[in-house]
């Protein structure tokens, strides 16, 4: 959309018309903004994103503050959502269907998967709709548009952290002790965040142009849930079909997230590698296509 450079070539001549001396002379570090119609290929300009990190902070802060305003239970919702889902799953799939859960009690097995899943699903949904619901900002002020879906994804991390404390409580209750493998939780959450950002950012940009996306997101999320090992372990599938599931980048994440929590088996580096690779492809593709669509946002949102 625009290119911002920090010009070093502005001559620091004195202003003859202003004998009093002008403190607002363009100094060598005065930012020079050049506005031009952009070509088809648009650079990412990560530097610009970095300089707006303060705004990102406030967007996240606003989302977190506003989310549970005027609700009776407040932030308890962040815990209730995975907890209730886990109870239903335990009843239906753990007890009735008798799904095997790789040697750990089904409730913590399901809750572990749901932690990642609910964070991912909420992040994708919120960021997918974020640009359209921020139309009033986009049409009135300039800032890197990527901050909007990014803020929506990051705000979900607070809920994830709250829900995570329950996981620890449940594990203590069921007598499952974490090992050093628990250290992997953080990188896995980062990977999930990046994947959610990649998917959410792309959907949010498409949503500006095609309002169909808003209706497609819940459907997509539902399909995605059943094709991820949340209710069931990967090992439930016949060995020769397990690779299909691995193509879903969430598979490697959820699988290894459980291993990190329970330390019951060695990490599956192969599926984690595939997840990481797919996540980065998605992120890079969606960043560039977001930047390409970005210039029309204010005109059509």
């Amino acid at each position, binding site marked *: 959309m625009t290119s911002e450079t920090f*010009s070093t070539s502005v001559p620091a001549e004195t202003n003859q018309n202003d004998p009093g001396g002008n403190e607002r002379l*363009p100094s060598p570090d*005065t930012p020079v903004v050049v*506005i031009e119609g952009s070509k088809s290929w648009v650079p990412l300009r990560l530097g610009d994103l970095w300089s707006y990190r303060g705004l990102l902070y*406030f967007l996240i802060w606003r989302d977190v503050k506003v989310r549970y305003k005027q609700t009776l239970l407040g932030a308890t919702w962040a815990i209730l959502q995975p907890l209730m889902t886990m109870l239903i799953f335990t009843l239906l799939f753990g007890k009735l269907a008798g799904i095997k859960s790789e040697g750990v009690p089904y409730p913590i097995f399901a809750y572990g998967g749901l932690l990642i899943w609910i964070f991912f699903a909420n992040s994708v949904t919120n960021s997918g709709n974020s640009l359209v619901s921020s139309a009033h*900002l986009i049409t*009135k*002020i300039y800032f890197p548009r990527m901050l909007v879906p990014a803020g929506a994804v990051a705000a979900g991390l607070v809920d994830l952290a709250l829900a995570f404390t329950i996981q620890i409580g449940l594990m203590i209750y069921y007598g499952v002790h974490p090992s050093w493998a628990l250290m992997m939780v953080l990188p896995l959450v980062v990977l999930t965040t990046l994947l959610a950002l990649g998917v959410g950012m792309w959907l949010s940009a498409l949503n500006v142009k095609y309002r169909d996306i808003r209706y497609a997101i819940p459907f997509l999320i539902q399909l995605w849930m059943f094709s991820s090992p949340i209710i069931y372990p990967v090992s439930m599938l016949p060995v020769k079909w397990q690779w299909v599931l691995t193509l879903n980048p969430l598979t490697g994440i959820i699988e290894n997230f459980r291993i990190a929590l329970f330390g019951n088996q060695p990490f599956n580096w192969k599926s984690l590698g595939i997840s990481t690779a797919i996540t980065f492809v998605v992120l890079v593709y969606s960043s560039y296509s977001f930047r390409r669509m970005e210039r029309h946002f*204010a005109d059509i949102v």
Partner: protein
Amino acid sequence: MPPIIKVEGLGKQYRIGSDGSAYSTLRETLVNRFRSPFNGAQRRNSEDKKIWAVRDVNFEVNAGEVVGIIGRNGAGKSTLLKILSRVTEPTTGRVELHGRVGSLLEVGTGFHPELSGRENIYLNGAVLGMSRAEITRKFDDIVAFSEVGKFIDTPVKRYSSGMYVRLAFAVAAYLEPEILLVDEVLAVGDAGFQRKCLDRMKDVGRRGRTVLFVSHNMPAVTRLCDRTILLDEGTILQDDESHKVVGSYLKSGLGTMAAREWDDLSRAPGNEIVRLCAVRVRTDDGRVTDALDIRFPVGIEIEFEVLKPGCVLLPNIHVSNEEGVLLFIAAENDPAWQRTPRPVGRFISSAWIPGNFFSEGTIIVGAAVSTMDPVTIHFFERDAVAFQVIDKFEGDSARGDYAGPYPGVVRPMLRWTSRGPEIKTARAANEEITR
């Protein structure tokens, strides 16, 4: 010293879809792709109308200048400001900005109703480009300027609209970029606060800040700006000292338009309940006119289409003079539609303003349709129409035989009665002499 803003050959083209909707559905695109996979893009283009909102605009602004931008609705003022503030991208041309830009296209951008005044100061400040430290430093000044005082920790959704605007403007007033772009934000708030804001802006200009100021408020433009750019149909018509440009704008009749009609209802002002079709200025013999004889009545006609039945609708007009002074507001009082929900269909409401009422000059009329309970403004077209009031000096207007300057915002023809020592008629006096 190089100019702080340099605009070269700037143009912005908008595409108006044939169906009038700005965004397309996925199905439409897929169907088009499928029908003609190789030239789908061109196909769509040929069906669309394109308009230039801004075309071939060139100007330079030096550091410290305060420049006004005027022109009637749709002249491209706001589009120009949106390009300069990087909200939207130009189709052609190039802009160079040597300095940090702060843009105020509305007050309270990013305000969240659930958050308190305090929280919104931080949020809005961040949106406008201030750092957290900067906001903290200016926080007390902002609160003092806004006059909301003890309500600072109340959610802004409980604020009156006046308080809301004051708080929002206060944050903006403490924005300190090298270049400030301001769009018509002063059209809100009470008169006292407006004055305070104008003074603050004048101050900002005096301190070497560069300001671009879009406004319909001609006295504000002449007072604040040394230089003014007049836009019409996307191009620069005049770029000169403010009083010259404002004068010729008002004289040229560019600002006056006796009838405005919206052919495409989907793009007309309004909502799903009612949309504006036309606003006209008519003489009492039915002609549309932009020149009114000061002695004769004039009708302001609002034509609107009700799309959804069951709403009590109140057409109203907002009449101001060329200095932006609101002379009066008048709402429809036809007994037939008082507290009566309207059926679907087209309505024409006319307000008749008596002769010998206005002063000479330009009268600007805004047209609105609102509902009182709950208060909803379905549309408010600020400068819908305008006309000139002319005195033909035939001796029977309120000014009588006097032809000099005649100030005053209205000029009513009053009924005068006078008492004094009895004056005898000429005949009676004659009789007295002869007796």
